């Protein structure tokens, strides 16, 4: 196990009209093994780009990502990804979806079945193994997506708004599940979200990013994720400092949004 290091990362998109967008500028991050970090920011701040670079779907224009003392080139099974929705394979049952990673690695069927059964239990889907994924509700589908990612034993789990499409109640339950999985598996997790509350609940470390150019605006170290592991999340939200931090971050993001609006209007 090793830490994840992001060094001097910059990403520039050249547009067809000759201009360019600086999606990320000079990002430096050191993420410790077993850390859960949430990333917040207004739209266009480059958080999804950052995640895609770490996953290996995009190559940065400058800088590098280092995992296990090795530079990241392209996607690989040491970095698992959980998407918002639509990434499950409809032609496979729940179990087959979860077993996809082991199957790609030609792991024995018996061993693979053990992994699947264990994970179905972990995410609370033990009676749903033979179901088709399109028969499940949105929340259950995300449980499958989490299990599928875990079946591969990745070192880092990247989550791109995994709970964004769920209703409020399901979302709260799933937040609890993410914390439970984090604690049980000890994986490094990077989670992108639009919800400030979710970022506070699920991030022992919270990154607020700012747009144009995409950069790290502020970083927090928070106790709420640790507290949430064996406490009701609604209690955590009432605990000291939660409300204040939320307001602080909210107004920070509001300011950024207003600045973007102002710049757009001035430019128009």
């Amino acid at each position, binding site marked *: 196990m090793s830490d994840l290091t992001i060094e001097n990362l910059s990403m520039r998109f050249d547009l067809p009209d000759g201009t360019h967008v600086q999606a990320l500028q000079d990002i430096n991050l050191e993420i410790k093994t077993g850390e859960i970090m949430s990333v917040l920011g207004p739209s266009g701040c480059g958080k999804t780009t950052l995640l895609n670079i770490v996953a290996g779907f995009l190559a940065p224009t400058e800088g590098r990502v280092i995992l296990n003392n090795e530079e990241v080139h392209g996607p*690989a099974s040491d970095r*698992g990804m959980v998407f918002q929705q639509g*990434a499950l394979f409809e032609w496979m049952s729940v179990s087959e979806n979860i077993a996809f*990673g082991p199957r790609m690695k030609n792991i024995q069927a018996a061993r693979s079945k053990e992994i699947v059964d264990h994970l179905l239990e972990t995410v609370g889907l033990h009676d749903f193994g033979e179901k*088709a994924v*399109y028969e499940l509700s949105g929340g259950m589908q995300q449980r499958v997506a989490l299990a599928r990612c875990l079946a591969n034993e990745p070192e880092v789990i990247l989550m791109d708004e995994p709970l964004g499409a769920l209703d409020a109640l399901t979302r709260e339950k799933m937040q609890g599940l993410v914390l439970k999985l984090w604690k049980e598996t000890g994986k490094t997790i990077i989670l992108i979200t639009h919800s400030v509350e979710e970022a506070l609940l699920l991030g022992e470390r919270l990154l607020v990013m700012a747009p144009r150019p995409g950069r790290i605006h502020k970083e927090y170290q928070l106790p709420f994720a640790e507290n949430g592991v064996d406490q009701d999340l609604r209690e955590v939200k009432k605990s000291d400092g939660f409300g204040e931090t939320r307001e602080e971050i909210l107004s920070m993001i509001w300011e950024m949004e207003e600045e973007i609006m102002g710049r757009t209007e001035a430019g128009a």
Partner: protein
Amino acid sequence: MIILTMYIAIFAGAYFIVSFFQRGKESKGFNALKTVTFGDESAVTPNRAAAFISVITIFLIWGAFTDSKLVPLHVTGPFVGDTSFTYTAKNAAGDTADGNVSIRVHKIGDKPDKPEVEATDSFVQNDSILVGAWRSKLINVKRNDEGYKEDGYQIVAIDGKPIKAGESVEVEDGKVALTEKKSLNFTPTKGLQLEPIWMPAPEAVVSRFIEIARDGYQNFGLWEHLGWSLIRVIVGFLLGALVGIPLGYAMGLSGWFRGWFDPIVEFMRPVPPLALIPLVIIWFGIWETGKIVLLFLASLWIMTIAARAGVSGINIAKVHAAYSLGASKRQLMWHVMVPNSLPEIFTGARVAMGVCWGTVVAAELVAAQKGAGMMIIAASKFQLTDIVLMGIIMIGIIGYGIDILMRKTERWLVPWKGKH
């Protein structure tokens, strides 16, 4: 025109009668509680009574206009039986006299005797003729009249109504025209029914079906004709799919393939396969090779485009997820791209099978020794309308059957289609 009017009348009449009887027992269930139904497509369900009456109406009208034994009501048929009219002739001396023409109108195929006529004592003699229903006949009435070769002889009236050459007069049960050569042409009343060579009765089509199913037609059994058409479709379609699907995948995955084949595919797609028949005949002849090539071309572009759409329509999250889970390119192809494109490929296959079925019939119309299309074109040359109708019905049933079969296979193989 009459048929269309009747059809519309039955359509509207049945609507009012059925809605009168169905009033009060409105359909239950969720739709019954919707207040907005006009414009809500999901609230529109096919009316079973309408579907039933629609099919019955077609057979009723068909039977009513073709003197079918299966249908109780008929429109007036052609006149059949004995009738007569009188003609008045004037001889060279200026005298006039009447002659009677007895007519026996018989069904086509019957061979009755001519009616007997009595001799008269004037210069005009009575005549008798046989006429088939729906036909007409020239009657040379003057032939047995005295002095008809003299200049002054002429026919001046029919049933007392004056007539000149080129004119015609309505008589009981028909029409009489006077030709320039002083012959009379009698046409019995045709009625509204259609002659069997235009439109045979339903039972005639059924008995023809039984006959051909048993004895075959033009050296081949009915099932051979239909089977050959079907085999050509299946072979042509399979070849098209075999080449088209990999080509479509390649176009969806490689810029070089897409650039190379895009102009070809986009150009060939709008060319109807029927327009290729002449070229295919020139290149490959009129026998099996030509037909298979034509059907191959008909399905090739459809399958190529379907496979390309299946590949490019994939949610990129699925591809990313598969790579993150450790899949190689080969594994991605086999476990993700191919299954993900199946729904599109099935849609394409259904379209291609429909197009191929239509194309094979058309190709057989042009040249073939056996096949559904050959059967109907051969029959039409002999005015065997019942075989033509039977062939069209069989072609329709098989085409419909193919589509149902494809849908069943689709539901079985691609149960996730349209669900996310």
